[in-house]
């Protein structure tokens, strides 16, 4: 055939190279959408595996407390320090308490908790479900008339949705406390004044956005962990890939949705 020398063929070749990953990406997006739809449907219809959900809540919530506490306390501390060094030239030290309050409750506590839990729990979910997939344990569930979405995915999604907001509320308190430590013990503010301006600055909207973000992040973490685990294949390497993908995609999505939610609440 002479076709090979025609210039149109190069364009076609180029388009093919471009098209293949694009088609793959769109297929993946479709797969993910179906996965999310099935997960949500199976999370809200009986039977519910409450015991498994409880176990997940302890794993996700209780055992994440140390990392969430450590990250938020240092975040609160560093914000207090930076605000002071940034604003002291304008003579606005009094702003430290409210800046700490706002940044911790609106941004730092939800985002840091989300990222930490994504690393801790998203990875664990992907690894566990991925191993179950490659060792045929998920097939075994189906042959034992148990829906893997109800048995594996729903408890994780529901537990994350419930637990992440609680973690963030705890992170709020600890983060503000971190700011207090620096403000009072390092910058020499009056403790009563600091607490006063914190309480005066407290607005329900700040807490609400943090909690809304936490719910969304929890959902993202569980879905990305379960989805990547569920579709993993090819033994140990596949499970490793699934774990990496779960953490990376969840982290990126958390940052993206953090912006989107902030825009929804605060952009006027």
């Amino acid at each position, binding site marked *: 055939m002479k076709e090979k020398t025609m210039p149109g063929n190069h364009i076609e070749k180029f388009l093919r190279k471009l098209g293949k990953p694009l088609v793959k990406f769109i297929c993946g997006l479709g797969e993910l959408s179906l996965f999310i739809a099935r997960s949500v449907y199976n999370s809200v219809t009986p039977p519910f595996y409450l015991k498994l959900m409880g176990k997940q809540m302890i794993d996700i919530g209780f055992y994440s407390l140390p990392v969430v506490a450590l990250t938020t306390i240092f975040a609160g501390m560093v914000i207090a320090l930076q605000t002071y060094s940034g604003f002291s030239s304008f003579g606005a030290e009094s702003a430290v308490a409210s800046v700490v309050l706002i940044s911790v409750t609106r941004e730092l506590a939800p985002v840091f908790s989300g990222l930490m839990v994504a690393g801790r729990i998203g990875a664990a979910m992907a690894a566990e479900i991925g191993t179950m997939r490659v060792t045929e344990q998920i*097939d*075994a569930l189906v*042959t034992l*008339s148990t829906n893997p979405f109800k048995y594996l995915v729903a408890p994780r999604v529901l537990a994350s949705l419930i637990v992440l907001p609680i973690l963030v509320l705890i992170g709020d308190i600890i983060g503000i406390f971190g700011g207090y430590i620096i403000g009072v013990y390092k910058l020499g503010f009056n403790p009563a004044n600091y607490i006063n301006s914190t309480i005066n600055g407290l607005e329900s909207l700040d807490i609400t956005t943090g909690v809304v973000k936490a719910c969304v992040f929890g959902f993202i973490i569980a879905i990305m962990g379960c989805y990547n685990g569920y579709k993993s294949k090819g033994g140990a390497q596949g499970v490793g890939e699934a774990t990496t993908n779960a953490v990376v995609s969840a982290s990126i999505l958390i940052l993206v949705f953090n912006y989107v939610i902030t825009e929804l609440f605060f952009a006027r």
Partner: protein
Amino acid sequence: MSDYKIQVRNLHKAFGKKIVLDGVDLDIKPGESLVVIGGSGTGKSVLIKCIQGLLTPDEGSIKIDGTEVIGADEHVRDGMHSKMGMLFQGGALFDSLSVWENVAFGLIENQHMPKKDAKNEAIRVLRQVGLAPDVADLSPSELSGGMQKRVSLARAIATKPEIIFFDEPTTGLDPIMADVINDLIIESARGLGASALTITHDMASARKIADRIAMLYHGKIIWSGTVKEMDKTDNPYVCQFINGCSQGPIKVEV
């Protein structure tokens, strides 16, 4: 009630361009033990997964007790699964659960048996497959490969299924343990009066457990008959496979 427990007609399944099943016809009568033999990568596992509904075939019909299962809704499928048990090649035991919880899984989750009764039943089934009661509280990872196979077999038969699938039951076991598993398969299938569909390439095992043997090659069933007929057949494919010759009509795709 249909004459056949499982009836497969014109089953097609392809992955991308790779055609795995190309028009499989298969019948299994109630209480019959059918063994499907065939080389590695000939689609034996895909066949079994299609019948169980773990994979959706591209074309064809699968009837269980006369009920079409392809495209059936979840309710029908659940009912179908509760009639089935499966022994997975790698055991596929739930490693987050103890041995007895594995065996009793179907009893607790689907038949809603109280935990205490389920545990007793699990221990009874474990004894049936030759495992002592003190194994019950161990975790599956603490068991040897042969013991894991037995636990998996116990899990497959605990719900008293009407159809049991065996996916390469003797692969990876020493010859003696393999024979023990063969005996257990025969015992448990006969004991329950269940139909059995086994896929294997272990001819010793196939001869022992089969009422009837079918050979899968290039996505089709190319031969089927009893063990006696198999030994007398002049089908060159079957002869080559059962004698394990590298020369013959079957070309190994390297």
